[in-house]
């Protein structure tokens, strides 16, 4: 049977979902199909270009093979096929933003009104204007999202969160499921399998954005106190309203930096990040990990979901193609972050027994694609590595 993404109308609606008109949904359907064409359809053309002409050309010129992923990138960026493919992919990202923003901004009054109803006077949303948006969040607009996570079209709006949330479908072809929560659902499944019967009392999600990865944990552990922090108020406003509409009453959104977590030592049973570490910087990443370890209870769990780190075992070509987003989709720390030895960073922060395990998005496979059967979309597939550790009790 021909493998095609589900239609955008199959995604679940929550209280903060923008209402797509017919053609807005159709544009996302096109982009889901187009992204699938560029990755599963012809993405392999990049490896073929490399093997058949770029690598031979490099060897002829330098009398050696490329020494690192950067040399491969510079050589590939001169190849006409790879250039055209990259230009198409870049455009698909820009069109996803443009289409998402048209849908969200034309109905922003309605969305802001709904958010106000969910948010007004609620103790579960704590905004702090004194929290600065760090330089690593401001340097460029991350993944070509105009305004990034912290941008506002007018004071107090929810446009950034609404646009981010709605377009995940187009970029992943529905790979994160009906509520873009396949990552969070995978965490719940992993924890239940790994520690049957475990009832964490307090969970912290650092860099939570719209909370799509933490809502499943809040619903799975309804008696737990769940805190989601981020430096960007606009996504927290949206995320809080979204979580409330989904019934996650035990989830509190707090504007706070992961570099200065305002909770006491040993407060949390579980400290989580999901696809967040690559949006930091060289000095911020170890600081966030160290802060996470500080607020983690002895015996508690720290877990980071990311794409696999680059290692000496990973072929240089594979590292190069996984780096595409770094330079073409405004992910300026992606390349450096994936070159880090994350296990060492965690060990240095006081977690001696680091484990690495594979995790894939848990979605309703009757509608959404089973990620174990998808062709790798190099850095965007909903198949992750979890870097975890249980904090020593002594």
């Amino acid at each position: 049977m021909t493998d095609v993404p589900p239609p955008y109308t199959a995604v679940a609606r929550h209280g903060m979902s923008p209402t797509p008109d017919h053609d807005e949904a159709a544009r996302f359907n096109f982009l889901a199909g187009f992204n699938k064409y560029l990755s599963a359809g012809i993405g392999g053309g990049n490896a073929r270009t490399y093997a058949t002409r770029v690598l031979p050309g490099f060897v002829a010129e330098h009398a050696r093979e490329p020494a690192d992923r950067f040399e491969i990138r510079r050589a590939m960026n001169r190849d006409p096929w790879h250039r055209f493919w990259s230009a198409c992919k870049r455009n698909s990202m820009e069109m996803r933003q443009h289409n998402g923003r048209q849908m969200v901004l034309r109905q922003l009054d309605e969305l802001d009104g709904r958010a106000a109803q969910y948010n007004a006077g609620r103790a579960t949303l704590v905004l702090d204007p004194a929290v600065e948006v760090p330089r690593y969040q401001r340097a460029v607009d991350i993944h070509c999202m105009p305004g990034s996570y912290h941008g506002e079209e007018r004071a107090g709006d929810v446009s950034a969160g609404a646009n981010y949330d709605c377009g995940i479908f187009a970029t992943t072809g529905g790979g994160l499921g009906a509520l873009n929560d396949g990552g969070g659902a995978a965490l719940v499944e992993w924890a239940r399998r790994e520690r049957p019967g475990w009832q964490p009392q307090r969970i912290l999600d650092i860099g939570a954005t719209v909370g799509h990865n933490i809502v499943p944990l809040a619903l799975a552990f309804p008696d737990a106190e769940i805190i989601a922090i981020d430096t960007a108020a606009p996504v927290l406003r949206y995320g809080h309203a979204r979580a409330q509409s989904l019934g996650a009453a035990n989830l509190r959104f707090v504007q706070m930096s992961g570099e200065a977590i305002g909770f006491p030592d040993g407060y949390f049973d579980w400290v989580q990040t999901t696809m967040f570490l690559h949006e930091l910087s060289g000095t911020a990443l170890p600081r966030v990990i160290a802060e996470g370890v500080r607020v983690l209870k002895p015996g508690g769990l720290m877990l980071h979901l990311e794409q696999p780190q680059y290692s000496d075992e990973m072929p240089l070509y594979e590292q190069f193609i996984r780096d595409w987003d770094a330079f073409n989709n405004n992910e300026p720390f992606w390349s450096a972050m994936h070159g880090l030895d994350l296990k060492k960073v965690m060990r240095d922060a006081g977690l001696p027994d680091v484990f690495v395990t594979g995790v894939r998005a848990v979605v309703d496979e009757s509608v959404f694609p089973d990620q174990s059967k998808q062709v790798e979309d190099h850095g965007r597939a909903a198949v992750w590595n979890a870097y975890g550790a249980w904090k020593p009790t002594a």
Partner: protein
Amino acid sequence: MTEGIDWIDRAGARAKGKRPAYFDAPEQDRTLSIVLALVAEVSALRERLDTVERLLDTNGTIRRGDIEAYVPDAAAGRERGVLVKAYIARVMRGLTQEMEAMATPEPSVEQVSRELRDL
């Protein structure tokens, strides 16, 4: 519609961060952006026509609101996904076939022609 901001203008805001140049001439980058936007619009138009046809099949008549409210069931959603896939394959034929060609180095047909003349 949203009051107080120009939503069409703001939706088209560029992302901060210098855009890579993919081609030697900037016009080529600009042209590809226009072509791909048109490719997407044709796809959306085709999907709208499919909606109209399905509504006519079912109801014999349509109102504009029916089009906006239409939600395909699983089978219709799949059929429309296949339409999009086949459409993309037609539009992107050149890039796909160039990838196919890379797998097998071939002489020019001119060269083959010379060979056949003397065969």
